[in-house]
């Protein structure tokens, strides 16, 4: 084994705030190093220094023992450092092949030809590259026409094709289904065998145990520890990351003997998305819908809320039939909805926490049609205290500066402020770190105890098992099974969600 990368005493400050303090990192060829830490611990800053996006204040980076100086991302690429970013960057209206080779499309030969792009070769190369992962994607298809998963696969191929020596993967599995995650791990193992060194960032600890040889933990810009994977377990990792112990969650199964269900969905259909959906959700209950991405669950919850329109079926809220055709109808019926991509559809990132909190609840706060600043502030502060929303600059901080967990709480608070009776959450902890995650779980628990009926859509099996009173599985647009918290197990859920139910 040889040391392919060494980072020594990396320091970085932003506006006088030290975000990285003397961070060391060593990486050997053919190993997977998991980089762990809560959001804001400094992981992404460290990675951006490695790929030349940021310049370190002090410190050294050595590749194969040679000191290097990266001024921009293309410099690090020349040294074989490739990145797979958490947020996909692609050109929707360009072909898959072109997205794969953007910035270095194959040229032809000859005096004029060498200046011109050889599309035939580009497409052939793309086919070859796609063959690496054995996927059926047409290189000529427009990126726009692909599913989220296919786009991610293209991104991964883009990074690993060519001379990747060091591969940095930033939450690569966030949008993948379990079989695809397995697929990805196979690829990672292949790359390892070829001697590629991998830095793997993930919030999913079980993945880390599955794939990494060593873990490195950052907290508040400090290097906490680097350990062999055998020396740690989940609890000790979380403790190292968070700096305190997080208790195991135990679900208290409250008896929901409520007279009427809070939400009753019957015979709900939408062509091409879901079929014959029937379920009830009781007061004070958390029910999860578990399924692989693209099984129709997102469209289902959107239809219940009114962000989409179902073809037929009925939705009752506390026994009253509701005609839900627009989001406004869902809201008026007392349904709250937290979308899957909260940054795009759930928050106005540039607006303050205060404004975001009161965004959809103007009516309660209006006095003769005008906002009263004091009242607005008091209301908002109430929720900030109740949910423990943490922000650096107070209530007027723009939401974009909050961590993922706190952003999620703002979205939550907004619906609670609107006094909803049924709350639908889509993938509530995507991009949320461990500490904030258990915080959100606690909040949901508390809200359920207060009588809120909560419907969670999640593709994270651990999350589903941790928080739900009941779990429904969905496969190909149809509900396949229902489990109580006690009955549910990983095996059962996965089988049901893969449509393999006996």
């Amino acid at each position: 084994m040889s040391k392919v990368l060494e980072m020594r005493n990396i320091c970085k400050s932003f506006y006088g705030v030290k975000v990285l303090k003397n961070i060391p990192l060593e990486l050997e060829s053919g190993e997977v190093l998991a980089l762990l830490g809560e959001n804001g611990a400094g992981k992404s800053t460290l990675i951006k220094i490695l790929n030349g996006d940021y310049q370190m204040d002090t410190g050294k980076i050595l590749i194969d023992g040679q000191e290097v100086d990266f001024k921009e991302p293309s410099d690090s690429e020349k040294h074989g450092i490739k990145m797979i970013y958490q947020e996909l960057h692609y050109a929707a209206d360009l072909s898959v092949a072109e997205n794969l080779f953007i910035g270095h499309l194959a040229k032809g030969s000859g005096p004029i030809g060498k200046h011109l792009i050889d599309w035939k070769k580009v497409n052939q190369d793309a086919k070859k590259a796609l063959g690496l992962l054995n996927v059926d994607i047409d290189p000529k298809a427009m990126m726009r026409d692909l599913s989220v998963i296919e786009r991610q696969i293209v991104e991964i191929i883009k990074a690993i094709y060519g001379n990747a020596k060091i591969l940095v993967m930033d939450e690569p599995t966030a949008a993948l289904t379990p079989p695809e995650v397995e697929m990805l791990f196979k690829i990672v193992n292949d790359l390892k065998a070829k001697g590629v060194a991998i830095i793997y960032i993930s919030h999913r600890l079980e993945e880390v145990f599955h794939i990494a040889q060593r873990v490195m933990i950052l907290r508040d810009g400090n290097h906490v520890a680097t350990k062999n994977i055998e020396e740690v377990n989940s609890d000790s990792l979380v403790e190292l990351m968070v700096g305190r112990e997080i208790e195991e969650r135990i679900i208290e199964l409250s008896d929901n003997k409520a007279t009427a269900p809070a939400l009753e969905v019957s015979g709900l259909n939408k062509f091409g998305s879901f079929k014959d959906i029937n379920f009830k959700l009781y007061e004070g209950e958390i029910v999860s819908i578990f399924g692989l991405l693209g099984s129709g669950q997102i469209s289902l919850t959107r239809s219940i809320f009114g962000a989409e329109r179902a073809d037929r079926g009925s939705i009752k809220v506390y026994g009253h039939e509701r005609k839900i055709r627009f989001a406004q109808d869902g809201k008026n019926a007392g349904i709250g909805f937290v979308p899957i991509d909260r940054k795009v559809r759930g928050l106005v990132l540039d607006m303050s926490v205060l404004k975001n909190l009161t965004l959809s609840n103007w009516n309660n706060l209006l006095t003769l049609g005008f906002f009263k600043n004091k009242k607005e502030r008091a209301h908002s502060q109430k929720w900030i205290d109740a949910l423990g929303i943490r922000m650096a600059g107070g209530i007027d901080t723009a939401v974009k500066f909050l961590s993922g967990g706190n952003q999620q709480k703002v979205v939550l608070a907004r619906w609670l402020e609107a006094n909803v009776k049924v709350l639908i959450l889509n993938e509530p902890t995507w991009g949320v770190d461990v500490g904030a995650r258990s915080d959100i779980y606690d909040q949901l628990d508390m809200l359920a105890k207060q009588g809120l009926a909560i419907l969670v859509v999640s593709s994270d099996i651990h999350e589903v098992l941790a928080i739900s009173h009941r779990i429904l599985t969905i496969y190909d647009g149809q509900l396949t099974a229902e489990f109580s918290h006690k009955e549910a197990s990983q095996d059962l859920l996965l089988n049901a969600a893969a449509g393999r139910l006996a």
Partner: protein
Amino acid sequence: MIILTTKSKNKKSKLFSSDSLATISLLISFIVMAIFFTSQSEFFFTSTNFANLARTLAVVGISSIGMTLVLITAGVDLSVGSVAALSGVLASMFWLELNIPLPISSLLALLTGALVGLINGLIITVLKINPLITTLASFSIIRGLAFVISDGQTNMLNNQGFYFIGRGNILGIPFSLLVMIVLYFIFFIILRYTSFGRNLFAIGASPEMSRLAGINVDKHLLISYTVTAFLAAFAGLIIASQLGSSAPRAATGLEFTVITAVVLGGTSLAGGKGTLIGTLIGVIILRVLNNGLVLMEVSSFYQEVARGVVLLLALSFDQIRSGFLHLRRERT
């Protein structure tokens, strides 16, 4: 093999990409329009009228090339009309006031136009001011300068050589049209077959991705705005040549005609998408619409209305179509 939930969709997109579909529907609407005008006016489908049409295509056509580039990068250039006016004014001023030979005066006018584009580009990339605002400012500044320099006067440009730019023929084909065709061909190759061209699409789609892919985004934007202004300046010379004079009022509203043509041709204001073939068809449609309405003796007031309606109709169809596609895709 990864189980892809959406396999069938790929197959479909092979048949008709949304791009070619847009071009086809554009062509069909063009043909319908041509048939309509032929039935309404006996003069429409005549060689005299076509010659007339051909002569008037170049100004909007050439300016639209640059606008297509800029829109693809998710920018916009509102200053093309002003630059065209300034270019004509400068050519005549250099010639009449400074006694510089007209060919050199014209060349200087073109270079000054390019300089305006370079400055636009610098403001957009270095100061990071939004292209719409930047070029709105230069739209006003440059038009103002054209008035200041010419003192608001129209100047005669009495020179046979200069007339050739806008009025001359080669083998019976208007010179300006030939130049336009050559330019379309060159820029078609650039957009399709060079890194520079492809990078413009990448930049328009996601500047961040482009930067990470090692593309020098600022350089590409600078070149695009410079080229756009240079071509606008050339269009300005064609106008001056056709009119036989330079006027600071020339090419008023050109930028909007050009944007209309480019957008009609399927280029997205959001960037990352567009074709020169689409633009060319857009230019022709606008021109033919105008010509047909004139032949039908429709008042020029209504012509303005018609142009706007056509634009809205074209975009509505596009929106409905993509909305339909989007619905089918909603599931993923």
